């Protein structure tokens, strides 16, 4: 009789993820040349490896923490500690489960409907036992009110016997604010050293990681520069710059290679004067994270209106400054600035409305956008309080703006058909459809 396997918390789901991604990657690898996609294959390799590392931590009792993109994860990795993401996998697999979005339907039972869908799904994953219980939680306290509370909720629902460290973000962007967050990173290091005895910060390893990620951010911005070309060399299918730099093990040269491949592809298209969208007419700034449901609107907009999203806040790499690796202090300070002032969402949401407006203005000008889409994601209550600022700015810039009210993660919040009608009405009312 076959022995029934008893899974530990999070293990069954992790194995499912690994199995699926592994098959996808192998399928791509063995596909005929015209169907191969080395960029996607490279990304899948990193996704799979992150999950395999999580499994290894579970199996071998190695140190692992829950962490987020705004927590200067370079530090954690340079200490030899693995980071598990809360929401990357559940999003990556959302349309691959059987039935599609099964976790998202299940999360509705939580009754947290007013909260960002991403936070809801993260809450669900922990309560449903889909995450591997870590050795500690590094809570990110931006970019929205719900983000820190997600971690408090972990504590109230079974994970109260592990230590937590909350990263407190300053509101301002002055020298004293950088000082404060640099010190916060030092406190994080002390916390990790205490929580995982024997694991200390390897400064040489940190320098290696940072030097590698510096290369990646430069390549990412090169990609952005190429997207400024008219016609844009890449379609609205948003680039995976964010996951490559901040959601998987930082400093992996394989991620750099993926960037290099994307840059090479875009360069070639520019050289050939080939736009990704035939008859490109409308160039859009998408003022937020990339939506999970982009495949449902981008090809439609491209075909019907010659519209392409040339940049989003997620894909916008210009703000990233190379981190100075000349001293320990310089590295920590550079990582502090990156975490609080350069990563998406936290950059635009933390502090006053200024950064959001600065980004819209710069992108519209740099990328020759002729309209702005503000998704006003239901979790970004701050963005929804900026509509008059954005409207005034767009009036000054001479570009129309479309305000939506969607969930970037959960298409059920605003039916796609309605959204398409809204976009059509907007293009027609502003004359963009007649270009």
């Amino acid at each position: 009789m076959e022995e029934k396997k008893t899974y530990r918390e999070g293990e069954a789901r992790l194995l499912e993820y690994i199995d699926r991604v592994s098959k996808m990657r192998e399928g791509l690898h063995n596909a005929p040349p015209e169907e191969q996609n080395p960029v996607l294959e490279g990304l899948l390799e990193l996704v799979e490896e992150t999950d395999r590392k999580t499994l290894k931590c579970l199996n071998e009792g190695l140190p692992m923490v829950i962490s987020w993109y705004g927590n200067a994860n370079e530090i954690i990795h340079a200490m030899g500690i693995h980071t598990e993401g809360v929401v990357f996998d559940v999003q990556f697999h959302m349309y691959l489960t059987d039935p599609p979005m099964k976790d998202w339907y299940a999360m509705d039972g939580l009754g947290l409907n007013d909260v960002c869908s991403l936070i809801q799904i993260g809450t669900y994953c922990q309560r449903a036992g889909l995450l591997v219980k870590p050795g500690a939680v590094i809570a990110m306290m931006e970019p929205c009110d719900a983000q820190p509370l997600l971690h408090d909720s972990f504590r109230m629902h079974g994970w109260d016997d592990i230590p937590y460290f909350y990263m407190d973000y300053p509101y301002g962007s002055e020298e004293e604010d950088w000082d404060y967050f640099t010190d916060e990173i030092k406190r994080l290091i002390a916390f990790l050293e205490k929580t995982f005895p024997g694991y200390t910060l390897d400064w040489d390893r940190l320098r290696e990681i940072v030097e590698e990620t510096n290369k990646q951010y430069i390549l990412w911005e090169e990609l952005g520069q190429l997207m400024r070309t008219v016609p844009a060399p890449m379609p609205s299918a948003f680039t995976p710059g964010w996951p490559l730099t901040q959601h998987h093990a930082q400093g992996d040269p394989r991620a750099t290679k993926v960037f290099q491949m994307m840059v090479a592809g875009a360069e070639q298209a520019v050289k050939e004067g080939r736009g990704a969208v035939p008859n490109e007419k409308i160039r859009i700034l998408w003022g937020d994270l990339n939506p999970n449901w982009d495949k449902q609107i981008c090809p439609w907009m491209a075909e019907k209106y010659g519209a392409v999203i040339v940049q989003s806040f997620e894909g916008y790499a210009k703000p990233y400054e190379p981190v100075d690796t000349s001293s320990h202090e310089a590295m920590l300070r550079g990582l502090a600035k990156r975490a609080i002032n350069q990563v998406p969402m936290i950059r635009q949401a933390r502090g006053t409305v200024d950064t959001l407006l600065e980004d819209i203005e710069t992108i519209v000008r740099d990328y020759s956008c002729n309209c702005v889409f503000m998704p006003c994601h239901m979790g970004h209550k701050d963005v929804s309080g900026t509509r008059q600022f954005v409207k005034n700015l767009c009036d000054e810039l001479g570009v129309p703006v479309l305000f939506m009210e969607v969930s970037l993660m959960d298409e059920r919040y605003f039916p796609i058909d309605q959204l398409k009608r809204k976009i059509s009405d907007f293009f027609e009312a502003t004359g963009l459809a007649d270009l």
Partner: protein
Amino acid sequence: MSNKKPLEIFYEVAGTLDNPYLQEWKANGGKTIGYYYSWIPEEILMAAGITPFRLRATGATGMERADKYLSSINCSYARCHLNQVIAGAYDFLDGVIGFNACDHIRREYDNWERLLNKNGKWFSFVDVPQKQGDAQTQRYASQLNRMKSAIEAKFGVEITDEKLNYAIHLQNEIRGLQRKLYEMRMGSVIKVSGADVLTAILAGFSMPKQIYLNLLKEYITEVEKAEGKPSGKRLMLLGGEFENPELLSIIEGKSANIVTDMIWDGNRSILYDVPIGSDPIYSLADYNLNIRPQDPRTAGTGKVRFEQIKEVGEKAKVDGYVHVKLALCDQYLFDQDDFNAFAKKNGMPTLRLDTEYILASTGQIKTRVQAFLETL
């Protein structure tokens, strides 16, 4: 004004924004600064000779004007408040101090300061840490010192330690008296309703302090003399800011009494006194961040907060807990959800209510409360 009973005055002051006491204060050359609740210590303004006014949206009858600036996923408090700003209901203020309260309020503040500040009001902002700890207390104190300097520069005053300590003493005295209103609901005879206590406390955030202190003393003497009536079902009110005593009256109805609470216009602001130390600004930062009861904005405090609620509830011998939140408030939605888990585990009957700033569906609230009371 002088012929009215203190409670009548409190209802008058709490039921509007600009009030006769502020008008008189202003007519005599006094300044009034509005602040977004709970994290801007009133004592610093008092030490500057300024009357602090805790911002409310009282009197709002709609949100239409604000909807140009905020959207339907912003909470009704922020929208009603901005509506009042646009309507000119806050023209009497000389300045406004904001802080990073929540995503709604942060942007509401930005809109007011940058797009709607038509009469050149002075604006200032305090960055308040979102977790406890020594480094955070230091930072908060440094932010408060910066605010203090900005007030000094703007209003040409000197805020000395002596003046600060005097203000702290005065506020502590007020807190002590307000706590008496809680003590008078501990027994089986109730002398004052939850709605009246809320009103009395709200008034204290809205008028010159010395006048308020005298009225409060008078009011407490009256309440002490009152016969009272036997307690109905004893409830503890939980949530954030409460600006509408009518909601409490609805909850109390004819058969229940709100005998204690954990809200900002209640126990959170008065349960403990500010310690007197050698550095009054640090004492205020320490008090706000580490000593007084916290709310969900201060990360990592959930379990401690809920234990504190349990302790306060047990002391007041409550039969049940009513957790009220505004729709679209992420902080209190999570708080409500987590508290519910805690309450279930600890056998604490709890009713969860969702409301909007402008009370509607009062019948529904009554029905839900009644059904809850029947289960107790």
